[in-house]
């Protein structure tokens, strides 16, 4: 068997079918499973997808949100991670780049994006 088939065979079992298709520029709500002692609760991280990379089980994305005191907070997740309960897409925005690193330099009104109508 070819290299790709065998490597995929290893990943297959853990690929999550329930993940939505997310694109750079999407506003998303990531529902995270957080374990506190023996209790498990859901924490939500909401923001803009500024990066999407990798393939198969290694597919990963980075979400940027503006936290307290106007501090930008970025968090990267593995798309198929069992630590993610679910991902909600809030809205699609019009962007022309794959990596939205330019958003890091923009604040307030300048950081607004147009919603995609399609």
């Amino acid at each position: 068997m070819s290299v790709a088939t065998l490597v995929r065979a290893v990943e297959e079992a853990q690929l999550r079918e329930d993940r939505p298709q997310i694109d750079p520029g999407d506003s998303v709500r990531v529902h995270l499973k957080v374990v506190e002692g023996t209790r498990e609760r859901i924490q939500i991280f909401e923001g803009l997808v500024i990066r999407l990379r990798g393939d198969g089980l290694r597919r990963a994305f980075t979400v940027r949100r503006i936290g307290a005191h106007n501090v930008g907070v970025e968090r990267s997740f593995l798309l198929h991670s069992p630590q993610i309960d679910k991902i909600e897409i809030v809205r699609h925005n019009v962007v022309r780049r794959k990596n939205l690193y330019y958003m890091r330099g923009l604040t307030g009104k300048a950081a607004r994006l147009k919603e995609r109508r399609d």
Partner: protein
Amino acid sequence: MLSALLGRKMGMTQVFGPNGGAIPVTVIEAGPCTVTQVKSTASDGYEAVQLGFGTAKLKNTPRPMLGHLGHTLQATPSQRRRQQLQQQKARQEARKKAAEAAQTTEAATETEADEAETTGASAPKGEPRIKSAAAKRRAGSGQALGPFAVLREVGVVGGDYPDVGDVVDAAMFAVGERVDVIGTSKGKGFAGVMKRHGFHGGPRTHGQSDRARAPGSIGPGTTPGRVLKGTRMAGRMGNDRVTIKELEIVQADAERNLIAVKGSIPGPNGGLVMIRKGSQVLAAAARGAERSYRGG
């Protein structure tokens, strides 16, 4: 029990562990391997099993190897030509003798003609010599195996020998087991001391030039007046046999002949590797054999 199996490195990826963390894994196509020879103390002075792995084209396999694997060898073109010439010569001589016999009818007896006929008949019938040698070897092993891309010897522990022709596959490994993976590292060519030995190089600032990757001093001066043997210097790096010990098997799939081990292993994707059971597994197997030997 066989101590090791041959395989091919397929590439790296990651899987999620029990608590959700990502574990880096290397996927290896392990086996199937065919036992091509069993070596014993009696016949070879040590105990081992020779395994064949991968497939090779018949036409690209050396004839000595085919003979070893129990194949019937066809005569080579030059051998065939020689046989044809011999047969031709024998026929010519037979014809000549027959003609002579016919000419000198009064002198020729029936027996002479018979003699000519028998020599003419026996010479072309001779089978190619090499075939008989192969047949002799075949009598020992039985079937024709392979041909294989590689043949490698692996050790055996705790008795329990396989037979020639047996196929061993990834089923010999279980999830959670520890294995050593042996391969040939990627060649790096002529590498400097920073890359090859992890030297720090020289200062880059304060007026330095041409010193950033230099090795520095390679020893004292007049005493001893020479460079000590083994001093680490630049040179060929990589393309060495490398063993990575005690890697954990994260996934094993005997059906697809694949195993996934935690961490990296030497060599390029597609490179040949040997997967050996971990030292503790081997030691346990060896102990088991000793106990059964003492018991019996």
